[in-house]
């Protein structure tokens, strides 16, 4: 890809390029990586390539800065996991970590330098009330004061409203399944919980195949493409790691996705990992996954949408229509998880809420 706008991607695909960047290149690369939430990851790549002493100091200050922030988050995540294990352990419920928190606790290479915004855990629906009550007694409170939001989450989502700890300030998402109950696909959370892996006493992650399928489902059905490139890099990292370390991983992957009714997002994940990052995926897996491929027209539309959305959110690498592509995706994913009659009022409500409560600070905020 010779298009200059793909610099971040080029560097991720071919890290040896880092040693040959001009200052003008760095001036493009650092903002691109910052917006994609990949500055810390970039630093991890620099460490991995042993380029710390070779590269110019000034841009490295930015990657190092983000890397240090990610190290702090990893320490905090480990601490929160310990606290959560105690809470759930007291109810004799296993702590099942999802996404970033799971990558960290399982010490997967994909977690190095990665930033996360909250911790996600999975609990069976029938124990949800107990868990919520226990967490409440330990200082976890709902961050949604608005009763509309609270009801929206409880009725239509696969998680309770996000919780925030009153003294530690950390955020927690408690999921009871991996897709909203109203979604078109209906994966069985019980099946996923039946196959979890213990990483430390009473602390679990999903099985390797389920971790990949969940990550794919999250990316391709949540409408959250703000960190699309980071998420596809996660997927790529998981595929590489499990391919090397988990016997039978490729054989199990597609059959499991079919069993969970999630072959469609897995198809997209494999397709785009290969297309964007050149992931090496065995032919037989790609062939099996064709089952999840949409028809030619839909495929074309998706390529058009995803290739635009899976870019760092930065004007220097926007193709025309990118913002249109992003909003179409947002509507598409809502369509996938809610019946249409519910879709319209919620989107309106969301747009209105965004206008009244713009999430911006006063110019002097950010003091300690």
């Amino acid at each position, binding site marked *: 890809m010779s298009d200059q706008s793909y610099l971040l991607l080029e560097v991720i695909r071919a890290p040896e390029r880092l040693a040959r960047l001009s*200052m003008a290149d760095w001036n493009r690369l650092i903002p691109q990586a910052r917006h994609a939430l990949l500055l810390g990851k970039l630093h991890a790549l620099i460490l991995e390539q042993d380029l710390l002493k070779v590269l110019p100091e000034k841009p490295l*200050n930015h990657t190092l800065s983000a890397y240090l922030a990610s190290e702090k988050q990893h*320490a905090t995540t480990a601490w929160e996991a310990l606290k959560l294990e105690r809470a759930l352990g007291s109810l004799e419920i296993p702590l099942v970590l999802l996404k970033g928190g799971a990558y960290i606790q399982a010490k997967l290479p994909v977690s190095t330098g990665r930033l996360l915004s909250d911790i996600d855990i999975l609990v069976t629906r029938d124990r949800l009330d107990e868990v919520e009550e226990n967490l409440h007694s330990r200082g976890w409170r709902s961050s949604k004061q608005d009763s509309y939001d609270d009801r929206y989450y409880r009725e239509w989502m696969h998680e309770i409203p996000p919780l925030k700890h009153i003294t530690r300030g950390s955020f927690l998402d408690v999921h009871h399944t991996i897709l909203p109950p109203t979604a078109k696909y209906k994966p069985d959370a019980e099946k996923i919980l039946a196959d979890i892996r213990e990483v430390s006493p009473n602390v679990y992650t999903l099985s390797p195949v389920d971790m990949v399928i969940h990550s794919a489902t999250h990316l391709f059905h949540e409408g959250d493409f703000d960190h699309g490139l980071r998420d596809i890099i996660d997927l790529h990292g998981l595929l590489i790691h499990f391919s090397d370390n988990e016997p039978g991983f490729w054989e199990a992957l597609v059959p499991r996705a079919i069993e969970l009714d999630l072959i469609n997002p897995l198809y997209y994940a494999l397709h785009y990992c290969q297309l964007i990052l050149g992931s090496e995926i065995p032919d037989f897996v790609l062939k099996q996954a064709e089952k999840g491929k949409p028809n030619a027209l839909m495929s074309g539309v998706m390529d058009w949408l995803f290739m635009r959305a899976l870019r760092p959110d930065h004007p220097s690498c926007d193709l025309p229509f990118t913002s249109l592509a992003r909003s179409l995706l947002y509507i598409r994913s809502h369509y996938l998880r809610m019946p249409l009659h519910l879709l319209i009022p919620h989107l309106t409500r969301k747009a209105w809420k965004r206008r009244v409560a713009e999430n911006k600070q006063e110019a002097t905020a950010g003091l300690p």
Partner: protein
Amino acid sequence: MTSRISDFDIDHLHALLKSSGLFLKTGPFTYRIRSSVRSVAEGLFLLYGQNRFFPEMEFVDFDIRLDSPNSLRRRFRPKLDFYFDHQTPFKPLPISQAFAFLEWGMNWCVSVHMNQYLKLHAAVLEKNGRALVMPAAPGSGKSTLCAALMLRGWRLLSDEHALVSLHDSHLIPVCRPISLKNKSIKVIEQFDNKALFGPLCKDTHKGTVTHMRPDARSVELDDTPVKPGWMVFPKYIVEGETRLTERIKETAFLKAGEQSFNYSLLGAKGFETMSKLIEACDCYNFSYSNLDEAVETFEKLSATAV
């Protein structure tokens, strides 16, 4: 090759800010600044005249821009957005507050990034080869005191950020204008008529705000770190006596930690760096109302430099 901003005339500077931008160096950081607002050019010309800029492409730490988001808004009620890499992290502000907005935005850039230093919200000055670090919450009279000391010959390292090196706990200068607000502006004007101020921004959420130019020597030494010497927690008390009292280092440590942007983020590194900083400092509480007496007190203190 670098030149000084005072090498420009103001129209030339304004034209540059409207086009490719000014590559301004301050301490370890390079900002690329763009704005079509005239008062931004005026403020930069007046207050950053001694600073260096890069005529060629340099690495840019912070790419910032201050402009109206769209022409429609401009026609009715001119409000400005602060852009950092094309994102707008703040609520827009009226054009009359442009220069203060720029300064706040420039501070924010350092506050939320740059974790390769331990950063305290503090004024830092130097005398006899030692740094005076004054961590303080807003409203404690830190900037007024800082301005007075600079006007009496202390070298200014920063009015806002103590950047502490993680390697040796030395203070890294990032010498920029001193922010003064409300009554402090008059106080400093009366204290010394040499004080030179930039644009006056009225009715901001902090009241009336202006910025004072650092002296040429401070800007000149903007690349020279300083060993820590004293940590003082200032407090302005209306009609209060001048009082400098020693305090134990252990509580000074915690108090400085409270005024840090990233002490907690740095974890054990933060603890170690703060330990070394405090180790090297004599720690005091200071309350004052009379600036002349205050300066005299610090003059005596500076003689204790070892």
